[in-house]
């Protein structure tokens, strides 16, 4: 009897754990609960002076205030428009350039050292010269974002094309596909997992580059808001900015990147979900 009850309790616990694990809201917000709690405790205990470290309650009310005044929405839309421009041009340049380099033996031989060289120069390292060239302008910001997106994207595409199994190309050729159809029907979809990874890393870099650019050359935007607040000695705005950055990236991933990957490479069984992390 005792054992029976124990087993049943264990089963109930398992069922609950399973339900919680499947609940989207819990899965999304759950991990943040202890972080926010810790944050709040540290702030309440005044481990650091309140001029340097503010609690979640202060940040939340300031967040509301910034929205009410219209500052946050306007800065946010400025940042997002810059990101959109940068990403758009970055993809427009990076995807075709990546495939050209990947498909042509000579293009690869000739450009690979250049790719490695330019990828190594960090986005921020370009800012001084970009400011000289373009001034404190939107063009300068866009340039830096495009720059950071293009190189990792090209490199992922090249390695993605290399990883397309040789037999798939051979099968297509011996079924009557022309070289062009091999590209559109085999190489391009076959490289998609790598392209998706490239876009993900590229976007991540671009997002960071944007904030860096705004901090240094911006007159608006989230990065500017944070740096401006630091100048004014207002820690709360810096906190708000940091949280907004994190939330936005999470939303971008959950709303655009992840669904895209689910409906393509996961649907086709081209990525294995790690058994270890089940």
């Amino acid at each position, binding site marked *: 009897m005792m054992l029976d009850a124990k087993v049943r309790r264990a089963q109930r616990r398992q069922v609950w754990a399973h339900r919680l694990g499947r609940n989207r809201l819990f899965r999304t917000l759950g991990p943040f609960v202890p972080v926010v709690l810790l944050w709040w405790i540290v702030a309440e205990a005044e481990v650091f002076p309140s001029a340097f470290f503010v609690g979640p309650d202060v940040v939340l009310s300031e967040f509301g205030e910034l929205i009410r005044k219209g500052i946050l929405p306007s800065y946010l839309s400025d940042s997002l428009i810059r990101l959109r421009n940068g990403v758009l041009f970055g993809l427009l340049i990076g995807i075709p350039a990546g495939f050209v380099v990947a498909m042509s033996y000579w293009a690869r031989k000739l450009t690979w050292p250049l790719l490695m060289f330019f990828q190594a120069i960090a986005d921020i390292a370009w800012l001084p010269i970009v400011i000289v060239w373009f001034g404190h302008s939107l063009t300068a910001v866009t340039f830096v974002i495009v720059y950071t997106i293009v190189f990792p994207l090209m490199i992922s595409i090249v390695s993605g094309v290399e990883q397309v199994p040789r037999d798939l190309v051979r099968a297509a050729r*011996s079924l009557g596909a*022309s070289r062009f*159809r091999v590209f559109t*029907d085999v190489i391009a979809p076959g490289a998609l997992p790598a392209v998706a990874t490239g876009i993900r890393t590229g976007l991540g870099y671009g997002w960071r580059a944007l904030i860096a650019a705004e901090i240094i050359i911006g007159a608006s935007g989230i990065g500017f808001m944070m740096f401006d607040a630091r100048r004014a000695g207002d820690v709360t705005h810096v906190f708000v900015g940091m949280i907004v950055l994190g939330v936005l990236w999470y939303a971008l991933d959950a709303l655009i990147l992840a669904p895209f990957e689910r409906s393509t490479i996961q649907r086709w*069984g*081209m990525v294995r979900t790690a058994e270890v992390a089940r």
Partner: protein
Amino acid sequence: MSTLEITNLHKEFVDVYTGETVTAVGDVSFGIEQGEFVSILGPSGCGKTTVLNIVAGFDTQTSGTVHVDGRAVDGPSPERGVVFQSFALFPWKTVLGNVIFGLRMRGVPRRERDVIAQQYLQLVGLEGFERKFPHELSGGMQQRLGVARVLANEPAVMLMDEPFASVDAQTRRKLQEELTGIFETKRPTVFFVTHDVDEAVFLADRVVVLSARPSRVSEIVTVPLERPRQWRAALDSAEFRHTVTYLTDLLAGDEPGVPADVDRA
């Protein structure tokens, strides 16, 4: 005139690390008649896959000729469809998408290719799976799809490169029986590479035995078995066992002291 005619095929390649010239195929000549099933049997590494790759147009010979329907082979072509050991199905295409791939590439109108696709899916027992993706099928089903994809294209010759080597033993037997069934209904011309003696004999009308590297044709054996064939009956038949024993000895003689099937996949 044979459908496939291989004459004095010779292939050398240079080992990129040692710089040595290696002869993969010494001197291979044989032909396959229209509607004939021929197994190419030889020890691992004897160059039989190299021969297949040259016939498929994936690789080029150093000397010698390959003719299909009287035309010299020059690169891959839909008249020489290939069934791969790795299946090589397109993971982003559904079962239907894979079967109609060749027809689409050749510009067959949609309505027509759907009819043909249905016919071949039925032939390999995959009707009802049209909308599945390859990774949702078992290994056996995937290779049946690989066969349907090639046959739907109606090639002059179907090239098969150890197509059943990566499925389990039970499934392999089943697939071999199904393949003979398909062969008996459709009568395609088949070039079947294997290192499995039983498989070679069970499936083929003739078995071309290649020697170890540098490979030559050591013998061409006609299989004295009636069609339709079934494993049960084949294993009971003295002709089948005699042919298998004969070929096993032949292969063993090639590599002294090593049983022929020691490196079976």
